[in-house]
């Protein structure tokens, strides 16, 4: 009985200390924020229903493909990533999966006024124009383009493709061999390696000019930030890191989860193994403790 009383005291003070330095201290250091809703309430909704056929024409007429590739429609990217980054700062995304990855209200708004939709007014304006111009066509045109993008988008986008399209043109993911200019190929000669590194460095330099800083490699972000933070951050970077150069990218909730799934697969690759091995190790020590207790009782019955 006395032993249990002592144990209760030890456990109590241990838990108080734990509570103080972990949940309590972190709640003070990281003030509470509202969780992401993915409703993009600040943006004007699309009131018109679009026609994909007219949207395809609108895309051509408005010159979207001057910068963006649409592989699904057989339109290749007009430039390679490094050249594109020299012109625009960052390689413009291929639009094949945009209809599936991004929220449709966000899509319409980002076409109409990219700086506003991406919440980058503090970075771009008349003095430093954003590389993608505003769209001055009608709301019907916008609705048509969005309808077109949705019509060509695949039903399922893989977690990796979601990451590559939404994040992978600014962020490396080197633990999965992904770099802002594309996957690192198997290279045999020093020359090939040097050429790859040169291209990567050129792209990074252009990116730095564009954003003012080089976005971090995200390989370990699942461990350093955790699910919840990444989800809320991706939905609205300004909310959690005011003044950041990272644009709001407008992913739907489902696509955000895919991005996080991919980040977890890269940064916490052994999670499944950890979770499946855990119970066995614990079971081993439960049995160990039971046997140890029985042995202790037997031994101490001779001395007590």
């Amino acid at each position: 009985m006395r032993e249990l009383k002592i144990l209760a005291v030890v456990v109590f003070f241990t838990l108080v200390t734990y509570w103080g330095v972990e949940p309590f201290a972190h709640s003070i250091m990281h003030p509470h924020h509202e969780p992401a809703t993915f409703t993009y309430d600040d943006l004007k909704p699309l009131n018109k229903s679009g026609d994909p056929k007219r949207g395809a024409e609108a895309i051509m007429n408005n010159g979207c493909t001057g910068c963006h590739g649409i592989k699904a429609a057989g339109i290749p990217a007009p430039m390679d990533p490094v050249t594109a980054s020299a012109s625009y700062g960052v390689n413009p995304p291929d639009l094949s999966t945009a209809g599936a990855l991004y929220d449709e209200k966000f899509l319409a708004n980002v076409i109409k006024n990219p700086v506003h939709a991406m919440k980058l007014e503090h970075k771009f304006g008349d003095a430093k124009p954003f590389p993608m111009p505003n769209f001055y066509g009608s709301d019907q045109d916008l609705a048509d383009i969005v309808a077109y993008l949705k019509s060509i988008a695949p039903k399922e986008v893989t977690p990796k493709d979601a990451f590559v399209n939404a994040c992978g043109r600014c962020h490396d993911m080197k633990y999965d061999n992904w770099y802002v200019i594309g996957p690192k190929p198997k290279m045999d000669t020093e020359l090939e390696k040097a050429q790859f590194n040169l291209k990567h460095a050129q792209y990074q330099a252009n990116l730095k000019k564009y954003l003012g800083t080089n976005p971090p490699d995200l390989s370990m972000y699942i461990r350093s930030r955790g699910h919840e933070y990444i989800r809320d951050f991706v939905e609205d970077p300004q909310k959690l890191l005011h003044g950041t150069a990272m644009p709001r990218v407008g992913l739907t909730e489902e696509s955000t989860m895919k991005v996080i799934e991919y980040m977890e697969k890269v940064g916490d690759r052994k999670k499944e193994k950890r979770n499946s091995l855990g119970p066995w190790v614990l079971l081993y020590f439960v049995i160990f403790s039971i046997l140890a207790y029985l042995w202790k009782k037997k031994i101490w019955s001779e001395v007590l």
Partner: protein
Amino acid sequence: MAQFTKANSIYEWLDQRLALTKLWKVLAAEYWIPKNINFLWAMGVVLMTMFTILVISGIFLLMYYKPDTNLAFDSVNYTIMQEVWFGWLWRHMHAVAASVVFLVIYIHMFTGIYYASYKRGREMIWLSGMLLFVTFSAEAFSGYMLPWGQMSYWAAQVITNLFGGIPFIGDELVIWIRGNFYVSDPTLTRFFMLHVFLLPLVIMMIIGLHFYTLRIPHVNNQDGEEIDFDAEAEKYKAGLKKEAKVIPFWPVFLSKDFFVLGVFMIFYFYLVFYHYNFAMDPINFDPANPMKTPPHIYPEWYFLWSYEVLRGFFFDVGPLSAMDIGLMAFGIANVIFFFMPWLDKSDVVAPAHKRGAFFWWFWALLIDMIILTIWGKLPPTGINAWIGFFASVTFLLLLLVILPMITKKEARRAGGAA
């Protein structure tokens, strides 16, 4: 020369040359421990096990770790955590054990304080134990630098900077410790050397010393009773096991320790598999970046109380700057427990609940140190700064003023009674 006869077994052959039977008796079968103990007396064996886990997991990590600022982060987070077979397990075990070992050290220390096991012949046990605490702290600090994450870097920056406060030689000392003007590659490689060679070696030697110091005064018991160990041992050997006040280390004492150890290991492995963030700070999964200071820099939880004593004095007093007062208080806090046997002026060896005022002093100290620990992590602004200040002052008062005062009274009373 001793007489050697033909041995009938390998054991006998070895016994003739190494006196194994006698050695086993001295170390275990006839090493006597009081019977009147509780599970807190098992913390030594738990600590020994944790240290063993740290050494073994450390050896495995050492085979893949690269002490180079360009390679360290990836060698830990990619090679060890993802590529090496069960590397993730060894790293989690190492990191969690490094944190949990301090919890057990603190329990072990406070047990010693509660039962007054630091005085009246047991001073050397206490001193060697405190030496272990200090070397373990250095070992933990140097190890925390190795993954070369943001917290590794900035903790190293802040802590090495503290040595700059030492008069006259401060600035040169900081450069000498870092091996450069700022924390960089030479800093990493020298702390690597300390972590994997010099400090473990010193720790192992002090562990030996710590065990040795137990030999003459023997382990204390729950009531602080003075036991004639020779007489009680004779009783036990004569078969009066129930009457004897002592038990042999093997198998009686260890049989209980194994059970306590088993329960502790359930707790430990639960943390290793499911609840490790407290020991593996998420911020340290960002690679070290000297250009980017994290918004909150804090040491691991077991250093927080002394860190808060350092930060607690946040205003200048006369000619003394806040920094200097803090550093002095920090210096005192780090060595004060060494003087426990002499700050306690009384000869009474008894559990705190039989020592009157000392009982309240004990809980006040524990609670004050928990407050220091928690506020050591909070941003030191507004009311928090004042709480830290008062808790720091309380800490110094408790040890330097109140403890000698109440124990002097206790000594007078004990003297009067005798």
